[in-house]
């Protein structure tokens, strides 16, 4: 049998052991987290799904660029909110994009308002600037007690004088200050910090609003000196205001010759005017690295088309319910696996043991990958994902059923066990690959085109299908090959599951049993 000669079961098993060892090493890499990342429905917490939309009154289409910038803004907000395990991810793209924000705790106070706020981009003149972490002491203001430290930013007022006391006592690195997402009135004066917290600034009302920026790009000048820079194009209204502001501001001493680019209440950049800018085209020079310049350009483009966020769905699950769902899911998995194991052992006897080992191995692989992928690509296990894995028990077990039935068919045809295991495999292999391909296709399409819990399910389903192929080819088949070579199995006892006598009983045609 040439097919049998080509099969090298030992080599496949060694290969599998290497893959398994590598997976274990990768999953339990020292120093990394060794726990599966659990989804909201299993550990409790609050999840808000936001659908971005262009702000009313603006025309155009939502670009991926806008969405990425919106995600950045939201990330800044929730990180500033002081929650350690907050997560912001984007699913889908373009008009179907959804931003999924997950924070621990049940309905944290004010979280939805924080997320819903449309972020503004404005240009404001700098009136005062100082180190963000240095608190002036003693207070030079006439009042005896220093003004209270602001609890949120930006602080806005109708006149700049009202802001100076708070400016002096402001420490930008106070937790919770750098989150943005507060009301932002472009007609008022503003006290705020730079995004990184190193500088605090008092700013005038906006002289240019974000929608007056028509384009912005990061470029590397031909001369090469000075590194990257960011170019800015303004529309006609913006160009007029820019020339007015630059003419008056460029004459002033520092810091009053500077202007703040304020996104979502925080200053992303505060360059100074070196000269009047008249043509509606400006460039911001500095010692930008490529990445910094690109980020700033992205921020400036965002301003042209501000994004409003609609709360599409918000879910809050208490940790106790999450715990209940987790244990129920695991219990269902254990019962399901147990039932399938019992059935396989009863029906296929010794061959059933091979199937059970394969199932357990597949389950082990899945667990390792869930932990490993949780750490590397942020895969989270949800209840739907657990359900997907449980359903996959059936599909994985079916690959063994297809294989074993083929072996039995070959034995019914009168083949020896050794030949039957090989012929059965060559035939079952094709069927397995075709059927698994359809499952994988379903998983990929679902993953690519869906949002939310369907995705977690599709990912698990796809993962288990791949594991199924791996285990069937490198574990089940080699093991069955060894089984087929064993004297005990070839003798065909009733416990082997491949007893020739039983497999021809009742039939009078093929191999002619002695009944």
């Amino acid at each position, binding site marked *: 049998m040439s097919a049998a000669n080509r099969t090298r079961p030992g080599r496949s098993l060694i290969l599998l052991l290497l893959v398994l060892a590598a997976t274990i090493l990768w999953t339990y890499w020292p120093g990394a987290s060794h726990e599966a990342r659990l989804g909201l429905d299993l550990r409790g917490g609050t999840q808000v799904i936001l659908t971005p939309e262009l702000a009313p009154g603006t025309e155009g289409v939502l670009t991926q660029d806008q969405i990425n910038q919106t995600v950045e803004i939201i990330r800044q907000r929730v990180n500033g909110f002081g929650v350690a395990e907050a997560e912001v991810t984007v699913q889908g793209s373009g008009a179907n994009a959804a931003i999924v924000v997950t924070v621990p705790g049940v309905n944290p106070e004010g979280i939805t308002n924080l997320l819903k706020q449309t972020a503004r981009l404005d240009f404001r003149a700098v009136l005062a600037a100082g180190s963000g972490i240095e608190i002036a002491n003693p207070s030079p203001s006439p009042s005896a007690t220093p003004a209270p430290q602001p609890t949120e930013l930006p602080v806005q007022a109708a006149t700049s004088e009202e802001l100076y006391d708070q400016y002096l006592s402001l420490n930008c690195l106070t937790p919770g200050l750098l989150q943005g997402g507060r009301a932002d009135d472009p007609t008022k004066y503003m006290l705020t910090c730079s995004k990184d917290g190193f500088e605090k600034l008092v700013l005038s009302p906006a002289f240019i609003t974000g929608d007056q920026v028509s384009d912005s790009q990061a470029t590397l000048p031909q001369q090469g000196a000075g590194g990257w820079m960011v170019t800015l194009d303004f529309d006609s209204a913006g160009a007029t205001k820019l020339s007015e502001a630059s003419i008056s501001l460029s004459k002033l001493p520092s810091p009053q010759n500077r202007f703040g680019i304020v996104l979502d209440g925080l200053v992303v950049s505060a360059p100074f005017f070196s000269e009047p800018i008249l043509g509606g085209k400006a460039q911001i020079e500095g010692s930008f690295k490529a990445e910094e310049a690109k980020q700033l350009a992205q921020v400036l483009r965002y301003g042209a088309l501000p994004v409003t966020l609609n709360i599409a769905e918000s879910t809050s699950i208490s940790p106790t319910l999450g715990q209940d769902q987790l244990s129920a899911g695991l219990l269902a998995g254990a019962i399901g696996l147990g039932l399938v194991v019992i059935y396989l052992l009863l029906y296929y006897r010794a061959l059933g043991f091979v199937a059970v080992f394969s199932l357990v191995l597949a389950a082990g692989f899945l667990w390792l990958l869930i932990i490993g992928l949780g750490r590397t690509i942020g895969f989270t296990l949800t209840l*739907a994902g657990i359900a997907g894995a449980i359903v996959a028990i059936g599909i994985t077990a079916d690959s063994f059923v297809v294989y074993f039935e083929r072996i039995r*068919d070959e034995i019914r045809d009168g083949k020896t066990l050794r030949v039957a295991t090989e012929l059965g495999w060559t035939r079952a292999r094709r069927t397995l690959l075709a059927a698994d391909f359809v499952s994988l296709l379903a998983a990929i399409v679902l993953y690519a085109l869906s949002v939310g819990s369907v995705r977690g399910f599709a990912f698990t389903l796809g993962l288990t299908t791949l594991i199924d192929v791996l285990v069937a080819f490198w574990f089940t088949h080699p093991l069955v090959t060894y089984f087929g070579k064993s004297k005990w199995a070839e003798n065909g006892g009733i416990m082997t599951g491949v007893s020739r006598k039983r497999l021809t009983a009742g*039939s009078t045609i093929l191999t002619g049993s002695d009944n």
Partner: protein
Amino acid sequence: MKFNEVGNRLYTGETSVDFVGRRKLWYVISLIIIAVASFGLFGRGLNLGIEFEGGAKFNVPSTVSVEEARNIVKAAGVQTSVIIAVGNERLEIQIPPLEQAEIESFTSKIATDFKVDPGLITTQSVGPSWGADITRQALIGLGVFILLVILFLTIYFELRMAAAAIVALLHDLLITIGVYAITGFEVTPATVIGILTILGYSLYDTVVVFDKVKENTRGIIAQSRLNYRESANLALNQTLIRSINTSIVALLPVAAILIVGVGILQAGTLKDLALALFVGIAAGTYSSIFIATPFLVQLKERQPDIQALSRRVHARRANAGIDGLEAMKVSGNQSLATQVSQAGPRTQPKRFTRSKRKKS
């Protein structure tokens, strides 16, 4: 007769169920089920969850009665609500869509009245347009998937098999959705996941059966012993034990989900998912045997070469004076292409020792 003996006889063709020949009966059965399902679907409609319709859902750990709960909800300013007791310790309250700020104030109001910590109330609120988005995405996914599957099955098998597989798939989908319409079970995203899984499962099952049909009918035109219909029917019988085993191993874990979902959690993802799967897998197994292959045979019998084959087989049998079942027995499982030259060596059964013979 023992189960394994049935399997043996099915394999050789000695025992054969004429699945293909009685196709009109299966079609009528399916049509009746589908008619009832469509009646439910278009008459009653689906009971869509708040994820599709928009609305808010609260899960409160409380032992107060549904009546009392309704009063509490009314006192909090919401007139229409659906309240379900989940087990003895939890209440599920569904209300129409509210603004996010209102949700927060509603939660704190009912938390006071139910005398529970607001942190223990699970809330979910969905905007009305979001559900429409999800539904549209699911339908687009379904369409893309079916196109890709047709493409794959046409390459791997042939166009007619792809068509038959898709008909079986739509059959399963319609029945599953119909069951939801008739029983009035709530359709949630978990239900959609369950239905999408059925897509994969139904096709997986059909692929396994068709693979055997393909194997049995390879080189069928070159002989005149069996016609297409008989070969396909033999393939069905030969994979019947596999189909039954597969359904059992697929249904066992689903049953486990159902037991745990209904028995322990009473509601939620697990129950919704398992219900759809249970119905869908049952329908999937049925359709791959009773619908997909008979329909495939019907399509194939329109091909001129298959028709010619049938005439040849008929003429040959008239001369020899044997019927179809006899012919099937003689051909057994041997691939038709190798039939003429006879199969490989057949080993005689080994004699067992006396003790082993007794056991079996």
